Structures are given as structure tokens and as C-alpha cells.
């Protein structure tokens, strides 16, 4: 565990900027456990940077982390942040308990595509339905990365993985569509290739009083890129470019950029054109809905005879 920053508050800081800023802490920890080219390094830097820019009180923004490669982000964020590593898929449920146990807190949930849309799909839907004040990130790399590249519910049609060695034949699930249907009040999707939009959406979500779902498309080179060609997602457009495996960070980021469509462009595209594409942008920002714990306070008022 050495080289990943101070494990404990009493431990001597390893980097001069460690005490002064979160980002300093992050940059000081020049070794991480992520594979080369992984998007989680970008995400943890953007997360800590936003956290610092906004001057957030770590005590009020606990970090609820699911199970996946991104669980290692726990080692990168500042040691004064309050974090808990939960069971696979149960992070939204635990965040509900934290928020309702102490309504001053606004949980920030880190979850992956398998975590939020596979095993924890039910908890995700009901978190959106309740409109609980929290921010939920879904890191979507389209694969089960930590267990070694098995097909996820979000794996693109036709992609290869260790459990779909011929090709993925199931239709993929769209977390954003589910969040919209279930009634989340702030819904956005971005990619690690668009870091500024990530920060913008995160800041909006922090100010938003209600469930905020932000999906981030992130590359997994080791388990997804090396097995798949960069023509994935462009099956319907007969491109005459060179087709190669996405075995480096650059190729994968390029593929993500090529494979995303902005929401205002997507309006003019048909289903065939949007097949295996990621639509990015802000899908919903509804401030008219009442937040869950505020609703519950009204119930308390009725029960206590104040209303």
C-alpha cells in the first residue's frame, strides 16, 4: 500500500502540497493502482479539483463507494473526506440511510455500470424515484473491469469480452433512460474526454436539491480496448478508415470522442444512426420537485400535530 499517499491522519505527509490542497494530494500520489490509460485517474483528479474549488466541507459530503476498479479512488481522495466502501451494488441504499439518518449530509455515490445497472439496478431505480438529495456517478466503461473483462449490462452490441468471446448479442441498458423514467431530477452524461463538462455537471449537481445522476463514459483499455476494434459503434457507417484494436489510451479516447453524440445533434438523428452511440449532455434539470427528506419533514410535522 505504500506510494498511494498517507493512509492515516497521523502519518507524515509525503508531499509538500498534501496539506494545502486535495489536488496536491492527488498529484503527489504519483502511483495509483489503475492500469495505464485508465479513465479513473482523470475522474479522481476532476472530482478532487471540483471538491476543492467549491470549498466543500468533507463532513457534509460523505463518499459512498461501490465495488469496481473505481473503489481504488478511495485511496486517492483526501484523507479528511469521509468514505465508506459498501457492498456490490448497495451504495444507493446505504446513501439513503445516511441521508435520512442525518439530513444535513449530501452523499456522493461512486458506482460503476455493473454496480448501478446490473446488481444494484433496483436500488438505482428507487433512488431516482425518491428524489433523495445526493449525487450519483455511474462510471460506465462497458465492461466488468475488476473481475477481468466480463460482459456488463452496458456492453455495446457486438463487442467481445471474456464471457462473450464470439460477440455480445444482448441489447445494452441505458442508465440515463432508466434514470429519466424513474424520475431523477438532474440527469447528465459526459465522458472523460470532456473533462470540463464533467466539472460543470458536477458543480450543478452539488447545487441541485434532489437526485443527480451523472454518467461518465470511461475507457477500459486492458479488458475492453484490447479485445475490440475501433469500428465498434460505427457498424452502420461504412467508414474507409483503418480499423485497429483499441490497445492504447489515445486510441480509446479517440474512439470515445468519435462514438459520442451531443444531445442537440441527437435530436436530428434516427435510431439506426444512434445505435451503439453515447448521447452526451444534460438530459434533465428539474428544480420543481420536492426533495425526499423535505417531504419526510412534512410527514413528521403531520405526525407531531404541527400541521
Amino acid at each position, binding site marked *: 500500500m505504500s506510494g498511494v499517499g498517507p*493512509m*492515516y*491522519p*497521523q502519518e507524515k505527509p509525503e508531499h509538500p502540497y498534501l496539506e494545502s490542497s486535495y489536488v496536491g494530494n492527488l498529484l503527489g500520489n504519483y502511483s495509483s493502482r489503475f492500469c495505464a490509460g485508465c479513465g479513473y485517474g482523470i475522474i479522481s483528479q476532476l472530482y478532487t479539483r471540483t471538491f476543492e474549488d467549491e470549498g466543500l466541507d*468533507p*463532513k*457534509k459530503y*460523505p463518499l*459512498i*463507494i461501490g465495488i469496481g476498479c473505481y473503489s481504488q479512488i*478511495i485511496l486517492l481522495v483526501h*484523507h*479528511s473526506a*469521509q*468514505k*465508506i*466502501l*459498501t*457492498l456490490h451494488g*448497495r451504495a*444507493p*441504499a*446505504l*446513501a*439513503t*440511510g*445516511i*441521508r*435520512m*439518518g*442525518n439530513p*444535513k*449530509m449530501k452523499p456522493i455515490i461512486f458506482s460503476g455500470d455493473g454496480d448501478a445497472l446490473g446488481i444494484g439496478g*433496483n*436500488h438505482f*431505480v*428507487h433512488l431516482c424515484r425518491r428524489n433523495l438529495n445526493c449525487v450519483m456517478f455511474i462510471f460506465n466503461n462497458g465492461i466488468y473491469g475488476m473481475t477481468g473483462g466480463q460482459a456488463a449490462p452496458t456492453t455495446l452490441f457486438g463487442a467481445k469480452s471474456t464471457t462473450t468471446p464470439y460477440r455480445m448479442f444482448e441489447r445494452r441498458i441505458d442508465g440515463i433512460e432508466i434514470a429519466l423514467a424513474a424520475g431523477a431530477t438532474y440527469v447528465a452524461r459526459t465522458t472523460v474526454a470532456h473533462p470540463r463538462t464533467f466539472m460543470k455537471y458536477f458543480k450543478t449537481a452539488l447545487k441541485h436539491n434532489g437526485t443527480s445522476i451523472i454518467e461518465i463514459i470511461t475507457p477500459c483499455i486492458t479488458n475492453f480496448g484490447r479485445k475490440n476494434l475501433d469500428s465498434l459503434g460505427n457498424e452502420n457507417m461504412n467508414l474507409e478508415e483503418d480499423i485497429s484494436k483499441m490497445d492504447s489510451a489515445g486510441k480509446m479516447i479517440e474512439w470515445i470522442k468519435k462514438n459520442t453524440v451531443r444531445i442537440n445533434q441527437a435530436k436530428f438523428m434516427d435510431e439506426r444512426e444512434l445505435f451503439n452511440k453515447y448521447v452526451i449532455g444534460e438530459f434533465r434539470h428539474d428544480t420543481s420537485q420536492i426533495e425526499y427528506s423535505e417531504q*419526510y419533514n412534512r*410527514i*413528521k410535522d*403531520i*405526525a*407531531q400535530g404541527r400541521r
Partner: protein
Amino acid sequence: MISNDEKRFLEPGKHLMMGNVAMSEGALSAGASFFGGYPITPSTEVIEHLSKRLPEVGGCCMQMEDELASINSVIGASLVGAKALTATSGPGFSLMAETISMAANLEIPFVFCDVQRNGPGNGYVTEPHHNDIGFVRFAGNGEFQVIALAPMNCQELFDLTITAFNFAETYRCPVFILSDAYLGHLHEVINIPPKEEILKRVIPRELPEDTSGRMFTYKDRVSGEYVTPKPPQMGTEYCPGLFIHQPHGPDGLPTPKPMEFIEAIIDKININKDKICLTDTYKIEDAEILIIAYGLPVRSSYRAVDIARKEGIKVGLFRLITIWPFHDEVVKEVVKNKKAIIVPELNYTGYIAEQVERVTDLKTPIIRVPKVCEFHHPNDILEKIKEVA
């Protein structure tokens, strides 16, 4: 964190109450302020009653989407300093096992009411069946020790729930209340003590004094004793520092040896068995034949002992109030020089009979009286007494 709200405590005196309601009122008196649950027969009355009562006292009762979510919300609430509980039965318990294991390893205190019922998801769901006794002991993957209490009437459902919360606060482990379908739906008169008396009994949730990063039970290197700090609380000055899911070794520091922290979470309970293991005896002094029982069969056993005594058979009753941890030493002492041991249980396997067999010498016969989905009639036990007398 007991709120001063008068509504938390019922008027002292006698009340006619259903078992599940008595359990809920016990939880409220103990200071519970969060309940996460999912309706399942026969534990539904707990969530029904608490969804009415908890908002009154400023707490929160949530009906979650499933049992997995309800237990997770309970440990979430416990992490931020609310005394929390959940209630379920049958298959709901199987779903919760995953998180019970996590909570036990993270030493997050909570109380779990298991209103036991027969069978899997379908079947005689409104019939009692003490079939979770074995499951409770190892309720989940991984190694840990839990505390399980078995009340026999509505008064005990109220009292033992307060005890359960105290055990949870002191030892930081999941504490189970093993009710069952008949007990949960039984209406009985219970005696509610005055508020002051209850408050004297309750151990409130406190913030830890030690803020050096020791969050988990550790073995003090000097005294060799297990020290269980107060549970860490998110959102306060006392901050867990790093993610709380980490092994905890001697002196509260992380250890590369998982053995050390497994030892700590199991032995912190085992060395305190004398305080945790509650028992009761009835006419045991000169008994030649001994009945060992827990839960509902105790009620039939009392009657059976009385009838047998009238007929001149020396029978005694030893009652386990705390089932897990099983206090080997005490039971070993009790079963010494007895002609026979009778173990009436509301299950066919005989989970406690197995434990009694383990601590009894081979000469003493152990007679099981299994019953499933129905009460023991005192005659059922009496028959066995007469067989061996």
C-alpha cells in the same frame, strides 16, 4: 440520542399489545430513530407500527424497495449515529445475510428482529417455526459472532429489545431478536415501566473519545484485553479518516494478518459471555430430569414441569434467553448428573439439542421433542418425562 419527546414513551402501566407492536415500542424506548424495512408476513406489523410512531418522535421509518436495501439503509443510518433496526422473516433474512456479514466485520451496531416463519418463500407463512436458529449463528459469509435473544412473551419482547440495543451499543455487533409468527401475533398485557426507569436502563449512542483513528475492537498490548471503542460517526468531528473497510489489528492499527481482526471480532463477545448469556431456571435445585428450552416452548415447559412435580417426578427447567453465543460452561454445569435432558424445540433439526449434546457426557440421554408449525402441548413434553422417569 434519546429525544426528550414525551411521545417516545408510552404511559406507564398495563397495555394490551401485539408482540410485534411490543417489540416496536421497546425499540422506541431504547432510543431507535431509524427503521428500514420491507413488508413480509409475519413481521409486517413492525413496519406498520413504526411508520406511524417514528415520525412522531422525530425519527425516520422507510419502506425500502427490498430487504437488501432495507438492511443497507439501516447500517447507513447507524453510521451517522442513529440507533437503527430492521425486522424481517423467512426469505427476507436470507437476502439480508450479505450485509449482516459486512456490518459485523465493520462493527456497525444494529438490531435485527427476525419473526421466524415456516418454509421458504411459499408455504405456511403464518406458522411459527424456529428454523433460523442455525442460520442466525453464522448469518452470512465470513467469520463473526452475533448475539441472539429469544423472548417468550410480549413483555420480554419489549424488555429484551431494550437489552438488544444495549448489547449492540456495547459490543458493536448485530443483535438478533428471535421472535416467531405466533409470538409476533400474540396479544398480551404488558407492563410498561415509567420513563425514568427505562432511561436508566438504556445505553445512549455516544461519540468515541479516542480520535486517533482507532475505530475497531483491538487487543490492548499491555493489558491483553479487548477494547471496543464507541462506533465512529460520519459527519462529526470524529472522522473515520480512511474507508472503514479495513482490517483492524492490535492497538487499533491496521494489520496485514486477517487472523488478528477475526480473533478480535469473535473474542470480544466470547470473553464477555457471562454478561451476555442470560438464562433463567425453574425448580432446578433437586431436579433429576432437566428440560432445556428457549422461546415459545418454554411456556409449555413450565406447565409440564408443574404437572410432573405434582406426580412426584423431579423435573427442572433451564431456560436460554440468549441463544448465541452458547455458554458452554454454564450449560455443562447444569446438565451434570442428570438422568436425562429433554430439549423441546420448534424445529426438527434440533439446533440447540446439538449444542447440548456437545457439552453433555455420552451417558446422559438427550431427548428431542420436535414440533413444526404448532405449539408444544404440555402433554407432549410430559410424555417424554414419563418415559425417562
